[in-house]
């Protein structure tokens, strides 16, 4: 009699859902508890805790790796800033120049998990594209890096002229970038090159920037018009036998490779910095989820123990009673 009552009581607990859990652990209710199980299982919570702990460890490790890579590359990026400064001193900076053939070079990373820097670069490139589109001038894209390629290919596939990826497989050096710049100059017709990248200001701040490099013909045109910095180019004597046109040609190519080198380095720095902060917030978040899961786990465990105790005690009192 008592045993039957016990069994009935026991069954009452089985199919009912576990005690109401909070927030993130609410997902656990969907998991199927076998019919007739007497104890509330903590297996599900324990599995989830293990995986969250692993995620926390991995993201923490990724942050350390990014921090060490950042330290190395930051020195190089800051030193490379001196490469393009003389060009600005000589030729000035004309980002708002109106030309027919614009080429937008978007520099981005190959790997993900680096926050929003690639999206900001792509948004800036698209904005530039729209700004410079007109009746007979369509800007073209040259995409460096996988992440921007994926985003741009979705809606601007026909405007992409060239894509380059896996640039950072071997450590960056000037020779590699100059070969790349040479490739671009040979294959793409341009009046103005606009290089979009993330400039590295500090570990937490990366500013999307555009650097403009003009082709020799456009520089010639501006010199003739005599306006702004370029107008004063006339006052410079050209040493050596070459004409100003030839010198400007060499200058433009050299300027492009210097600016590219700096852009790629700065973007790599920004990528490392963004990855550091993304992984940091990820491991912090994993820690919080782990705390909440631990609470749920303890509550579930204690509920199971209490249930067992209640059964035993009520059984005992039924026998006595």
């Amino acid at each position, binding site marked *: 009699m008592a045993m039957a009552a016990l069994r009935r009581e026991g069954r009452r607990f089985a199919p009912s859902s576990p005690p109401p859990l909070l927030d993130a652990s609410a997902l656990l209710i969907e998991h199927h508890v076998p019919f007739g199980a007497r104890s509330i299982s903590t297996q599900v919570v324990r599995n989830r805790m293990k995986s969250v702990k692993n995620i926390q460890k991995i993201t923490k490790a990724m942050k350390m790796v990014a921090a060490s890579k950042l330290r190395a590359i930051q020195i190089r990026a800051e030193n490379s800033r001196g490469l393009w400064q*003389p060009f600005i*001193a*000589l030729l000035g900076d004309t980002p708002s120049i109106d030309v027919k053939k614009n080429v937008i070079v978007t520099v981005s990373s190959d790997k993900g998990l680096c926050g929003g820097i690639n999206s900001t670069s792509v948004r800036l490139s698209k904005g530039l594209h729209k700004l410079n589109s007109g009746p007979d001038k369509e800007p073209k894209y040259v995409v460096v890096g996988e992440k921007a390629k994926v985003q741009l290919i979705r809606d601007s596939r026909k405007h992409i002229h060239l894509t380059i990826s896996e640039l950072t497989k071997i450590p960056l050096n*000037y020779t590699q970038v100059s070969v790349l710049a040479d490739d671009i100059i040979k294959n793409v017709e341009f009046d103005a090159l606009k290089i979009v990248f993330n400039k590295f200001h500090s570990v937490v701040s990366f500013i999307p920037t555009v650097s403009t490099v003009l082709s020799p013909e456009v520089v010639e045109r501006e010199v003739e018009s005599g306006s702004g910095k370029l107008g004063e180019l006339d006052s410079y*004597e*050209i*040493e*050596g036998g*070459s004409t100003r046109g030839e010198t400007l040609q060499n200058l433009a190519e050299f300027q492009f490779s210097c600016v590219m080198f700096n852009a790629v380095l700065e973007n790599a720095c920004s990528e490392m910095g963004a990855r550091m902060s993304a992984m940091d917030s990820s491991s912090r978040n994993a820690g919080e989820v782990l705390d909440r899961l631990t609470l749920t786990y303890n509550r579930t465990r204690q509920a199971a123990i209490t249930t067992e105790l209640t059964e035993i005690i009520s059984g005992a009192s039924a026998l006595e009673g």
Partner: protein
Amino acid sequence: MVDMVIVPATRGQLGVLPGHVATIAELKPGIMSVHDGNGVTKYFVSSGFAFVHANSFADLIAVEAVPLDRIDACLVWKGLPEFTQKLKSASTDLEKAEVQIGVDVHSALNSP
């Protein structure tokens, strides 16, 4: 503020003093020297450009620039005859250009 800078331009050595006229000069591989009141610092420059601005500022952009004391003199001394040999045996235009560059660089390094 330095006294004088000598840069290896394509047509020869170019000496720049304060007040020099604004110039753009293309460089060939060679020695660049900075003459200060106290002494001379020499660098080997692989190639690049030199801009002299009207306000007596000079910018030098080089693909590679190495202070001279970092260069091993014996290797330079050995390299020159080696490259001169190779120049005689070079066949294609590309090879000739490469070897000619080697000869230029080594003879420039050998001069001081």
